[in-house]
């Protein structure tokens, strides 16, 4: 069903949801925004912010540092309790919601399930806010998504001026909307206009047709040598990325605890082995890995591109490296090279 949430009612409704859920919403954090627990401060909300939150919401399910277990000197180990309290994410964009579904294929796969991830996912409802004014760095439609993509959402929300239009997509979503007024037919029509316009306004950033073939064929291309030159090898693009999920496990002996921390293929220590040997010895291999993983290996594994086009890596790379430009170039590389 479709419902209406007037702008003025947002604080009231968030308050209501807070009674049964821990509510996370994009809020002011330093000079930007992040998903933070909503504490009744409506003035902190950043629903109009021109871009996605800077810190990626994947952290709500895969915290940057997370305790896996604690142990005692006499060999006892215990795992922390799973986080199953009901949670609600309000106002997350479609690219980020879709990213969660991609990450489900990693943390909630057939033969392996991560209990921490799963517990958080199952206890969380997601209200996606579609983007009616996508940014210059966004390219969701290029990578199988869209500003109003519904994958992973319980409710999809559209800004129709005075109010938001909410379409409940799952029972979880319906349940949340039960106290809201229904949307009128006129309002429903407005929604499809907004959604269609936003989707068709998005330019194609690069061609994905044949991209994987070009990437695979050019694994050894000197192109990667070009790409790595300005790259600093920092963790910005991967840590801010909503689909990057690599982690490292560390025992913190002083705390008697084991932690899982985000890690990134852009760091040289990421692939360095105990012997000191590093199979990805230079930035050339590392920059290649980031693009290959998202645009080739994900496709091999789940048949989908592992990037949702959120544009964070483009926007915050300190040297202005743009994944779209890199892929445009890569797509043009000759495919026969490797077969010659």
């Amino acid at each position, binding site marked *: 069903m479709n419902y209406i949430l007037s702008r003025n009612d947002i604080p009231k409704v968030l308050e209501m949801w807070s009674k049964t859920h821990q509510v996370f919403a994009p809020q002011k954090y330093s000079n930007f925004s992040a998903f933070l627990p909503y504490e009744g401060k409506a003035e902190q909300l950043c629903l109009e912010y021109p871009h996605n939150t800077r810190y990626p919401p994947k*952290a709500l399910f895969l*915290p*940057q*540092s*997370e305790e896996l277990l604690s142990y005692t000197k006499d060999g006892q180990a215990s795992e922390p309790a799973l986080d199953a309290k009901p949670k609600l994410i309000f106002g997350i964009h479609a690219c980020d919601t879709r990213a969660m579904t991609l990450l489900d294929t990693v943390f909630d796969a057939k033969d392996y399930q991560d209990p921490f991830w799963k517990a958080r996912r199952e206890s969380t409802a997601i209200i996606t806010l579609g983007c009616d004014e996508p940014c210059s760095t966004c390219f969701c439609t290029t990578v199988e998504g869209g500003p109003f993509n519904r994958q992973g959402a319980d409710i999809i929300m559209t800004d129709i001026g005075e109010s938001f239009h909410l379409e409940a997509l799952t029972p979880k979503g319906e349940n949340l909307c039960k106290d809201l007024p229904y949307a009128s037919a006129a309002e429903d029509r407005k929604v499809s206009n907004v959604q269609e316009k936003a989707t068709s306004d998005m330019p194609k950033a690069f061609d994905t047709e044949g991209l994987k073939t070009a990437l695979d064929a050019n694994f050894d291309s000197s192109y990667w040598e070009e790409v790595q030159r300005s790259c600093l090898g920092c963790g910005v693009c991967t840590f801010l990325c909503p689909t990057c999920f690599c982690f490292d496990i560390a025992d913190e002996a*002083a*705390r008697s605890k084991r932690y899982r921390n985000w890690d990134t293929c852009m760091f040289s220590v990421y692939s360095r082995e105990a012997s000191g040997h590093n199979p990805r010895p230079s930035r050339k291999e590392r920059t290649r890995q980031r693009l290959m993983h998202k645009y080739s290996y994900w496709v091999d594994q789940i048949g989908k591109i592992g990037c949702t086009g959120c544009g964070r890596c483009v926007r915050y790379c300190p040297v202005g490296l743009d994944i779209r430009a890199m892929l445009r170039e890569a797509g043009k590389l000759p495919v026969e090279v490797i077969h010659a």
Partner: protein
Amino acid sequence: MSANQPNIVLFQCQWCLYAKTDQDWVENSLPENMHLVKTSCTGRINPLFVLNAIQGGAEGVMISGCKPEICHFKEGNIGARRQLSAFQKLLTHIGFDRSRIRFVWMDLQDTGRIQKELATFEKDLVDLGQSAVLVTRKPGFEGGMHD
């Protein structure tokens, strides 16, 4: 430790205590709230050691080394002083109380001094009271993680 017995970490250059009795005392008879870290020279004291001690709950850090010109390695202490005093100023800049880091430069004449220095330091730390600045790894006092 009780409020009257603040944790003190003593970083000691292994050459700076000339009197055997002093060295014996430092090695075997330090009160329980004082912890000895012996190094090969003050030049070996990485500022990270000092930071780690503070983060782990040391109320005060004492650095004991040789006076200038009598360093076993000729000028280890000269370099160490530049680094460690700059580090002390840096910590002060971000809100740490500089009097919680104390230097003691000693020579042959100073038999019995280390005991006195530690006692005064302990008393001064008691007067200062407990600090939470930079104390982020003390058991039961752990700095939380942002998640």
